[in-house]
């Protein structure tokens, strides 16, 4: 095996080694654990950068082998798409590790934290490098598990323990459909390897007419597959876990619940574009799911007061854009937005972490205010992140969002309008957040005495600000082959988007400028369209009711009536037969033998 082939294996296994080392060797030494984990993240980043000079690499070993009937290789594939995603995962990953060393310095379970973080990196890199569906599923589930562990880091808090459980279960519901989809694709085409599926699907598509039923079947399969991304990328109606996941430490929110794990759904869909594009019905569903999520999540974000939750709903909304773009056959635009969003959203979360750190664990924006003067570095970088997110012309988010809006415009006016309204709302809620937390007057003692954190924490903010500003230009955009085509027919899109930006921000300034409390109350948005309540009721009347009913059946019907009844019958007969009792062992043997003969006769007559 030549060294180029070993390269992706190194990228994949390096964080696993760190995780194992921490588990078996340095559990007691928190400082060393942090160093091991951060070093491995650094190696990952270095490797990801080196990977650009490599040709496409594909290397695999057989994992489950049943000949032609069923083969699952364990393989890594380092192609253009994977390389771009690697940059996001390792880049943001390394900065988050660095930031965590200070953010978590007073935590008495840092070893566990860094161990889990390394485990997460392993799982996420597995998704990026996976060359087949089963391996994708493996790491997909592992990402869910490591997210479970990290959300529940402060397990003594009921809210954190509940949130982690909820996240895992909601993801599992998505994975249920994902696996059905994988089985259907395999049942139809006989393989789970992407590289073999692609030509098989192409062959089907080449002859639409004769293969119509096969393609219809494939379409249903893609819909099931899509359940995976709906869970992992927190799309409606499985979005409910993501806001609760904010119970985890803030650096975790930045890495997992903003930049990488939640983007895995988008990544998967782009990875299997050839399947998605062969299923028009699924495409429509995907596009609608994405756009509805984008819009509704933005509406919910306008009424939240917790700084992390605002960002969480914003993440939902931006993920909706990306998923929507995939459904509009604009996978490149989706990846472009995934790329830029990862950087500026990580920046915003880490900025929020700096604020929370400076405010002694206060997350309510109405207790902040005036942080502009107290935390200048955080202020500037957070401001740049905000501008990038709301699509300020010239910043990264402007270009990537534009690419999606253009695609939406080409698909249908409805999608374009939904996209633009979302852009307006985005600009509104982010301006609200920024005004209230940073620009308005301080609203608490803590806000008056807040200060910027040390350089290890502000450093990542400053580093992340660079791609947030610049990655819309030149090299970064060319990564995704997105020609932002501002010819004569699409010039109105960026213009309209900018109008939306101004209207949204302007309204926010009008409503929230120099205010110290919320003036608008829309319970429907604040209470998140009552999804949680709805699910609680739904679970109560379905699963829990069924479970209680089954339990009742088991206790009283199967065990009670049937089993006890049978034994009562036996005892009853025993009582009657007591008269046959002769107290002689041979007699019993004869009875036994007679019984056997009767039964055998009944069975074989």
């Amino acid at each position, binding site marked *: 095996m030549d060294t180029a082939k070993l390269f992706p294996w190194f990228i994949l296994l390096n964080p696993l080694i760190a995780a194992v080392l921490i588990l078996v060797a340095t559990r007691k030494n928190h400082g060393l654990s942090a160093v091991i984990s951060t070093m491995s993240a650094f190696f990952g980043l270095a490797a990801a950068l080196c990977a650009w000079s490599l040709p496409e690499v594909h290397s695999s070993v*057989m*994992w*489950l*082998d*049943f000949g032609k*009937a*069923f083969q*699952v290789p364990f393989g890594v594939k380092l192609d253009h798409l994977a390389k771009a995603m690697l940059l996001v995962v390792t880049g943001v990953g390394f900065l988050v590790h660095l930031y965590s060393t200070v953010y978590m310095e007073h935590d008495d379970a840092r070893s566990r934290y860094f161990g889990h973080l390394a485990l997460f990196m392993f799982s996420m890199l597995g998704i990026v490098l996976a060359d087949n569906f*089963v391996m994708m*599923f*493996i*790491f997909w*589930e*592992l990402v869910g*598990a490591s997210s479970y562990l990290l959300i*529940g880091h402060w*397990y*003594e*808090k*009921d809210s954190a*323990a*509940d949130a982690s*459980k909820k996240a*895992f*279960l909601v993801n*599992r*519901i998505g994975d*249920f459909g994902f*696996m*059905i989809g994988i*089985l*259907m694709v*395999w*049942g*139809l085409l006989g393989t789970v390897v992407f590289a073999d599926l692609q030509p098989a699907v192409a062959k089907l598509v080449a002859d639409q007419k004769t293969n119509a*039923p*096969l393609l*219809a*079947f494939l*379409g*249903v399969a893609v819909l099931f597959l899509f359940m995976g991304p709906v869970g992992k990328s927190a799309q409606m109606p499985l979005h409910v876990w993501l806001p609760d996941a904010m119970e985890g430490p803030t650096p975790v929110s930045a890495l997992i619940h903003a930049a990488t794990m939640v983007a895995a759904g988008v990544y998967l869909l782009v990875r299997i574009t050839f399947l998605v594009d062969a299923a028009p019905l699924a495409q429509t569903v995907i596009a609608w799911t994405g756009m509805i999520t984008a819009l509704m999540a933005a509406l919910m974000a306008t009424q939240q007061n917790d700084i992390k939750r605002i960002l969480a709903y914003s993440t939902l909304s931006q993920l909706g854009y990306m998923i929507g773009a995939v459904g509009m056959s604009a996978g490149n635009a989706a990846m472009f937005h995934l790329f830029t969003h990862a950087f500026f959203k990580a920046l915003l979360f880490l900025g929020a972490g700096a604020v929370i750190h400076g405010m002694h664990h206060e997350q309510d924006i109405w207790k902040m205010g005036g942080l502009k003067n107290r935390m200048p570095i955080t202020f500037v970088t957070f401001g740049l992140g905000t501008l990038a997110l709301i699509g300020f012309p010239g910043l990264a988010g402007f270009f990537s969002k534009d690419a999606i809006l253009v695609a939406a415009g080409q698909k249908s006016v409805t999608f374009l309008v939904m996209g633009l309204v979302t852009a307006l709302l985005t600009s509104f809620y982010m301006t609200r957040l920024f005004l209230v937390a940073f620009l308005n007057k301080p609203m608490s003692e803590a806000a008056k005495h807040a200060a910027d954190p040390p350089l290890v924490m502000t450093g990542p903010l400053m580093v992340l600000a660079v791609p947030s500003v610049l990655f819309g230009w030149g090299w970064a955009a060319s990564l995704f082959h997105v020609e932002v085509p501002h010819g004569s027919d699409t010039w109105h899109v960026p213009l309209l988007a900018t109008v939306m930006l101004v209207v949204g921000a302007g309204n926010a300034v009008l409503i929230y400028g120099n205010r110290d409390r919320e003036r608008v109350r829309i319970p429907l948005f604040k209470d998140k369209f009552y999804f949680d309540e709805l699910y609680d009721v739904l679970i109560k009347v379905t*699963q*829990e009711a*069924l*479970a*209680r009913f*089954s*339990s009742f*059946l*088991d206790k009283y019907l*199967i*065990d009670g009536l*049937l*089993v006890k009844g049978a*034994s009562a019958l036996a005892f009853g007969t025993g009582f009657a037969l007591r008269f046959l009792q002769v107290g002689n062992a041979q007699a019993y043997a004869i009875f036994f033998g007679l019984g*056997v003969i009767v*039964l*055998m006769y009944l*069975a*074989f007559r």
Partner: protein
Amino acid sequence: MSFPVLYLLILIPLAGAFAAMLNFAPKRSCLAASAANLLLALGLMPGVQPGGEKFRYLSSIDVVPALDLKLLVGVDGLGLMMVLLAAIVTLCAIQLSPQVKTGEGGFYACLMLISAGCIGAFISLDLFFFYAFHELALIPTFLLIGIWGHGERIAAAWKITIYLALGSFILLLGFIALYLAVPLEARTFDLRKLYLLQESTGGIIPTEKQGPIFLTLLVGFGILISLFPFHTWAPQGYAAAPTPAAMLHAGVLKKFGLFGLLRVAYPLLPYGAQKYGSLLLFLLAGNILYIGLVTISQRKLDTMLGYSSVMHMGYIFLGLASVNVIGQSGAALLLFAHGLSVAALFAVMGDLRERLGTTHLDELGGLARSMPVLCLFFGLALFASIGLPGFANFAAETLVFFGAFGADSVNVSSPLHFTPIQWTVIIGLWGVVMSAVYMLRAYRKVFFGPTRSGLGEMLDVAPGNRWAFALLVAGLLIVGFYPKLLLDLIKPGVQPVAAKVAQR
């Protein structure tokens, strides 16, 4: 014939039992015996690599020559995997036994007898002894529950005794019928001869007789495996059983039934298996869906684990029902994986019960702070049991699902037109979600949240016991990362079986 090394596998635990009975350092001598047995089983592994003669290390002692009845032992990869499972679980069960207050010698002797009986059954190639060894293992199980059990131990012991004795009896009928159904001149208890005949004649048992015999075996084995609706003995029995007895029974002894289906019923009665395939699908769906729901509503850790182990039997049945190499290999691998994971879960439960005096979920909470190691092992075992990738259970369940889904070719005439077995796969996948629901809820309730008053000062797992937990988990992880290790052993044992039925 070379040195009859397989007899040692039975004799070593018997020697341990004997030493315990004489009260000769019961725990230590049993530990030594089971460790020696595990080493011996590992040492036999190179000898069963695929290729050549199917069964290895053959030895035989004539018992009743007229009936061709002999104590014939031999293993293929599948058999040796079961021996390995039994040896690992025995060793850990002995180590993790809580303090025994009265009759320590008898207690450990019973455990070793179960182990010897299980191993005897797994290596027997003679139908009579296959059956008899299992009986040998059942009796000490009843004693352990009745004498050293918890809670309503007497009632539980009676229930499990009557139930399992009934199952064994039905099984005996099935075996006798099987024996008699073979033409007079070919009658034998020797499984190897039966296989050979089956291969050369393409069916030694007349097609029309296969149905009832298969059904009898299915019900008999089914009761032993807690196939729905013959399952109600299991949760109650496991809740009442002393920890090591629950580990050994749920982890190893119960697997005898599934092993028997794979060894006897499927290869010799392919038509019967085909005839009652849909019945089995219906029952196993009951195991997964219905028992899954019952498990969700459990409020005590012991019965919850009992029900969950009943539920997971459904997946093994699903693999068997696929009747192809993929699914049945998955089922066999799952025998191993489930055996280790359920043993680890019962061990954690027993540890909690021993020290806290309760397994009621509402009375526990926040134990992660004082018992981080126990929390870690419980987490690993539960993630294994809900099929998280990386653990053996995932690899096995993947094979089961793919095997069963691929048992019928997909029907593209209309989307969502699945065949019964494919629907059962979908039910099984939903069961994976339900498993996560009850397992994570239990984990949350026992270990997370604020520490409940009175539970703050608990000691963690005794350092001397850690290696036993680690051994169980390590087994799951090694096979989970590299399932080929066992699959290469399993496949030759399963392949002819599945091929036979596929030809039809």
